[in-house]
């Protein structure tokens, strides 16, 4: 039986990609996708293809940059890495996300635990 998987929350893919690149440095698209799956403990239902429009978007915003290189098994691939602007954006979004999820968590805590 396959365990239940979660969809990527809308608007979070950018953050996930940025975080991945910031932690692991330079990666190709497949690498990023794999990493995301692993990091989520395979709990995230990701259509791998969707990261490419996201990567394009991030690059257009100037948060990541890309260049063509050769993979470990000699395959031509495009390598992405985060830019300084991307790091700033990541910090801002991370803070945002933490705040938002804290609020959500607080909201969902059962009431009256302290009473």
């Amino acid at each position: 039986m396959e365990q239940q998987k979660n969809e990527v929350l809308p608007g979070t893919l950018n953050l996930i990609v940025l975080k991945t690149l910031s932690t692991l440095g330079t990666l190709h698209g497949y690498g990023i996708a794999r990493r995301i799956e692993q990091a989520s403990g395979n709990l995230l239902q990701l259509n791998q293809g969707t990261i490419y429009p996201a990567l394009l978007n991030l690059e257009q915003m100037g948060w990541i940059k890309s260049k063509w290189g050769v993979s470990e098994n000699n395959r031509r691939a495009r390598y992405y890495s985060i830019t300084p602007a991307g790091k700033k954006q990541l910090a801002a979004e991370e803070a945002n996300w933490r705040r938002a999820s804290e609020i959500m968590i607080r909201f969902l805590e059962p009431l009256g635990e302290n009473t």
Partner: protein
Amino acid sequence: MTWLRVFIHRMRGLFLKEKLERELQDEISSHLEMQIEDNLRQGMSPDEARRQALRKFGGVEQVKESYRDRRSLPIVEATLQDLRYGVRMLLKHKAFTALAVLTLALGIGANTAIFSVVYAVLLRPLPFPEPERLVVLAGKGVGGRLIGSGVAYPDYADWRIRAQSFKETACFLTTSFNLTGVDRPVALPGRRVNWNLFQMVGVKPELGRLFTEQDDRAGASPTTLIGHGLWKEKFGGDPSVIGKTISLDGNPYEVIGVLPPGFELLRRDDLYVPLGLWFTPDNNLMKRSNQFPLYVLGRLKPGVTEGQARREMEALSQQLEREYPQTNSNRTATAVRLTDLLVENVRPVLLVLLGAVGCVLLIACVNVANLMLVRSAGRERELAVRLALGAGRGRIVRQLLTEGGLMAALGGATGLLIGAWGIASLTTLVPANLLPLDQVGLNPTVLAFTLCVSLLTGLLFGLLPALHASRTDLNTALKEGGRSVAGAAWERARKGLLVAEVGLALVLLVGAGLMLRTLQHLTRVNPGFKADNLLTVRFALPGRVYDKDRRLVFFRQCQAQIAALPGVRSAAFVMSLPIDGSSWNSPFVVADKPVPASGEILWAAFTPVSANYFETMGIRLVGGRVFTEAEMTDSPPVTMINESLARRLWSGEAPIGKRIKQGFADSQAVWREVVGVVADVKMNGVDQEAPLHVYLPLAQRNSSSVGLVVRTMGDPLALASTVQRTIQSIDKDLAVSNFRSMDQLLGNAIARQRLTMALLAGFALLALLLAGVGIYGVMAYAVAQRRRELGIRLALGAQTSDLLQLLIKQGMRLAGLGIVIGLAVALMLAKLMTSFSSLLYGVKSTDPATFALIALILLMVALSACWIPARRATKIDPLVALRHE
């Protein structure tokens, strides 16, 4: 600034499309292969590895599509796509495209050509500051003319002192000068002007200086300003012309300046000379007499309107009339904008033509809109399928508008070519004295106009089908299995367009018809003399060389020598050539009648002629005798009058023996006895009534400016150079050029109407053709639509004649409606054509014959346009028609 960055990125995407597409493909395939390798490593079979990789990736095409959307600018991409698709559609339906584009091109081309003329003549600003504040002051015009005669100098002097409306005024006198010593002697148009005229107008000399006050008085050293054209033609544009002395009418003048190109005062002048040089106390000009050679130009004070100035001038003339009842009675002055005067003759022509080409363009648009409607109805299924597959309605409308725009662009480009060709042929077709066409051409303004017109037409005929398509009801369109279900509203729209088209064509045809009738009348007008085989020329005998007696000697000698030339029957001198305009108009008094009240003083054209003038011209003698060679300076003063004058003064009495005197009652002129009456002769153009006319013997009265008429045996112009040589053998310094046959003079006189007629007829025929095509198109479509119905009717036993009747009735109902509406509109517009443009002659704006004939022609064309498709419908094989569905 992020948006800019993204924009630049996306622009890049637009241009590097193929490279980026390849990279995307590479990236995805390398992604997939890596995944497959990983899968293989996990022990999957190759097939399974591939399937799993693809599954994990998600839809490759969807990813690509959403990637592409982000990569570049979707709006631009979509437009490009629409354009590509549009081009494909246009290429696919070549005949349709060609027809539509040609129709539009004709409409746009005609508009471009006419607009270029309208712009050059009516809209282009004059090359000096605030031209709209310049007014011409002169006698009030009659018969729809803006101004009449000029003004006498003393009157002008009074105006200048009393008038409050003007910042400044200056007067000028129109004349011509014999330029000798440069090439052959030539007579050149010129003006004597007040020194301040050019400063007031605001023109700067191209070279040298303008006149000063010192130049403009009697006894000053003679100076002249020359026009740019003369400078280029006669002096080769050499700047050293400044300071040179040239000989005008035998007198030396120093050239002090050259006026800039394009500077004209109501006509092209080559020479300007200060007016004051010419003033002597005994000069006729200084008298408050009956000669009115001066025209005045004034610049309005700030805040004063043309109307205020005109009212002031009218009031001023009433003052002068009270002060000088003998000379100033019945002389009302007026003020007219220079810009209005410039275009007085051509404005109505151009407005009529502009209206006409506007109609042609509208018809073209209607036609193309109809064609597109017909086609879009045929495309309903295609559009419905596209809608069903998820295309937005906006997207479909945009697609159709793009197709319309594309067609308009093609039409505009082709139209521009046709327009350029039209301009070129207009320039050869139009006589130069009618329109100054040297300024006409494809300039940026005209190009902008063409662009706007094209865009507008594209919108106009693209919008209808687009709206149509956007309303398409998906279900019905698909369900009906490809049969068009154009709604009743659209059917009505198409019929309405057809009616409009027929109406517009009728309006144009009526306009052309009326002009044709006008021209017919004008060419049939009896001018009062025999016009064929007549050679004419005007020239001047310089006053310095020729006094009255020497002039007479010259006339005799010249006349005899020319009459002796082979091919010449006779030659005669006359002061003003018929048709060309009477140059001397004067009041007169009659001996046996009481002195008329100031309001009833009669004016006549006064024309000194040589004794054989009437015989040479072939003017019929009605009573009495003609002048004889014996009538010399010292013989008793005599005169001849025309029939109109005889009838006016002595109807029922014998005019012979009566006496008249030129001028007012107190004039010093001699009493002359009437010795003969001749038929009326048209003096001022073909469409003007013959004036009251008084002839004087040349021996008793003549001036330096004369006209020569030569009756020839063959082609008159072939003799021009011989006649010129003969005259110059008598005096080599005489400037004699510009020979014209009387036929040419007559032709020039009706050039305005002829041009209007020719162009209007061309446009009307075009409109007729387009309307015919339009009717045909709609009928053919209707027949195609009703194939099945017609087949059933035939199968049920309908006769072909029944079907024919059915179909033709349908088409003719529309055409008939269009004709009726068109007739009503044409009636209104034709009235306009007479009331404010005096273009018509000899034909009423409501001429029933024209209207009836035109309606009939249009009916015939409509009938044949209906007949052909209807006829084809009756050939339908019922079996085929029924199976066809």
